[in-house]
């Protein structure tokens, strides 16, 4: 697996890159091979393993020597249960070595796969990373791209020769397309240093998660965050940031934006947040957002990161494109991910949770540990108006003053449905909480749950 790439722009030496990433006085270089290096160090105080190839030598091409070094780094990380950070800039498998280098690259992939879900793996892509050097990061838990990152399997030259498409390497595989179109990258940094900072922050959150201490999660007011009109959509981000101790590190913010996935702390303990975003597509679930969420849920479950799931979802997005795009297959991934998760997982229903989307968003039936709802929340098969139009369609069709009849039937429907109290009686909602008591209620729920973590890998769904 090779690609022809332009030689790199960034000239910093491998050792400099490791120094930029880790706490400098703690770095112990363990092995060098053809310019590549792996080291142990602390990152934000968390003992970790780092490795990097040498992009200044043959474009950082992967071959037996430097691949064996990566494998050694991984074996150490696994033996000592340490997060491992890879700094990537490489043209992929070294062509001149033929199948020997393909074999070496395959062995790197194998060790990454064995490590999957056992230790957090973070990739920081600093320049071109093609072919084997694209799939390396792709197998890890989190991919961060610096502005010079260029990730693809086949590059512009080969694409032009085979398909005739003309595109430059940035538009093909830069941070922009991978943030917004492909979902390959979780974060696109503003600079190399910013990429290192983000990686370090994530190592700290995943490597030293701690535990939620409810005493530290003091209540904050939530009034004014949601619009007065219940049909008006809003951005979920301020709600998330109000719940967490500090603003979220959002993963894949530009891709499948109708769900927000990210990591932060609540009461000092790391949590993973999965939240519908009503501002995007009304907050509807669709194939892509379900897939994005599923992978994130499984990553958190692998590392024992408790989940906070914020629900305001009208349903799945209708459309032929969705059905042909496999919303049934890809949506099933989210059901499976939540159902399988043993990590503490708490749900908050803010406004509405309808139908199959209610099920998919960490409901009681899928094993949620605790379900909280705001007083005005609705849990239903569908909204009242939609339900009335379906159940009473003949009556409505025959009625000259349809609007008045519909309004009356909707009011009746809402009354007999019984609001969120009915859901509580049924047992699918554990607690009805005033918005201003949200933060503490979530923290109490999390703090009461024993730590647990899934025993599966984090396959890149």
């Amino acid at each position, binding site marked *: 697996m090779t690609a022809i790439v332009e030689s790199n722009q960034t000239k910093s030496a491998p050792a400099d890159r490791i120094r930029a990433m880790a706490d400098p006085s703690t770095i112990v270089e363990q092995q060098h091979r053809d310019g590549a290096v792996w080291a142990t160090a602390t990152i934000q105080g968390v003992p970790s393993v780092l490795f990097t190839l040498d992009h200044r030598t043959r474009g950082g091409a992967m071959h037996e020597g430097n691949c064996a070094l990566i494998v050694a780094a991984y074996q150490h990380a696994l033996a000592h249960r340490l997060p491992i950070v890879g700094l990537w800039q490489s043209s992929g498998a070294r062509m001149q070595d033929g199948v020997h280098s393909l074999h070496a690259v395959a062995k790197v992939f194998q060790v990454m796969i064995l490590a999957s879900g056992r230790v957090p793996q973070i990739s920081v892509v600093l320049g071109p990373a093609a072919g084997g050097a694209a799939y390396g990061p792709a197998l890890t838990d989190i991919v961060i791209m610096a502005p010079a990152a260029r990730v693809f399997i086949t590059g512009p030259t080969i694409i032009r020769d085979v398909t005739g498409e003309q595109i430059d390497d940035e538009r093909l595989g830069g941070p922009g397309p991978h943030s917004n179109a492909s979902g390959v990258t979780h974060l696109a940094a503003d600079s190399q240093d910013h990429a290192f900072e983000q990686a370090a922050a994530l190592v700290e959150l995943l490597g030293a998660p701690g535990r939620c201490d409810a005493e530290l999660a003091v209540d904050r007011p939530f009034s004014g965050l949601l619009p007065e009109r219940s*049909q008006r959509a809003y951005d979920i981000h301020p709600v998330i940031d109000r719940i967490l101790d500090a603003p979220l590190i959002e993963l894949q913010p530009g891709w499948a934006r109708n769900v927000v996935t990210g990591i932060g702390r609540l009461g000092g303990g790391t949590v993973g947040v999965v939240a519908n975003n009503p501002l995007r597509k009304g907050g509807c679930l669709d194939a892509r957002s379900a897939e994005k969420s599923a992978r994130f849920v499984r990553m958190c479950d692998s590392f024992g990161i408790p989940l906070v799931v914020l629900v305001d979802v009208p349903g799945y997005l209708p459309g032929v494109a969705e059905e042909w795009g496999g919303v049934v297959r890809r949506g099933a991934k989210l059901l499976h991910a939540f159902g399988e998760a043993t990590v503490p997982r708490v749900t908050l229903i803010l406004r509405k949770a309808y139908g199959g989307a209610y099920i998919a968003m960490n409901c009681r039936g899928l094993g949620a540990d605790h379900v909280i709802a705001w007083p005005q929340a609705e849990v239903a098969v569908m909204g009242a108006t939609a339900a009335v139009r379906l159940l009473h369609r003949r009556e409505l069709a025959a009625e000259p003053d349809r609007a008045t009849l519909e309004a009356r039937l909707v009011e009746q429907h809402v009354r007999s449905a019984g609001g969120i109290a009915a859901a509580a009686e049924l047992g699918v909602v554990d607690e009805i909480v005033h918005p201003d008591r949200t933060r503490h209620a979530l923290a109490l729920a999390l703090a009461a749950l024993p730590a647990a973590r899934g025993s599966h890998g984090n396959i890149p769904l």
Partner: protein
Amino acid sequence: MAEEIRAEIVGSILEVNTREGQDLHQRQTVMVLESMKMEIPVTTEYAGRLRRLAVQEGDTVIEGDLLAIVD
């Protein structure tokens, strides 16, 4: 670099509360789309000037339709 604001979902234009030439701040609501029985504000990613409104109230749009251009 012009920002093209496109419909993220099928729906109809409920409300246009801005006009061409208007200066917008980041994440300002340019118009409101009605879809899935909800009123969804359409916002601009970046601050800038509203160069063009491509739709008006009452229009129906599908995913990908151009709604506005911000400079």
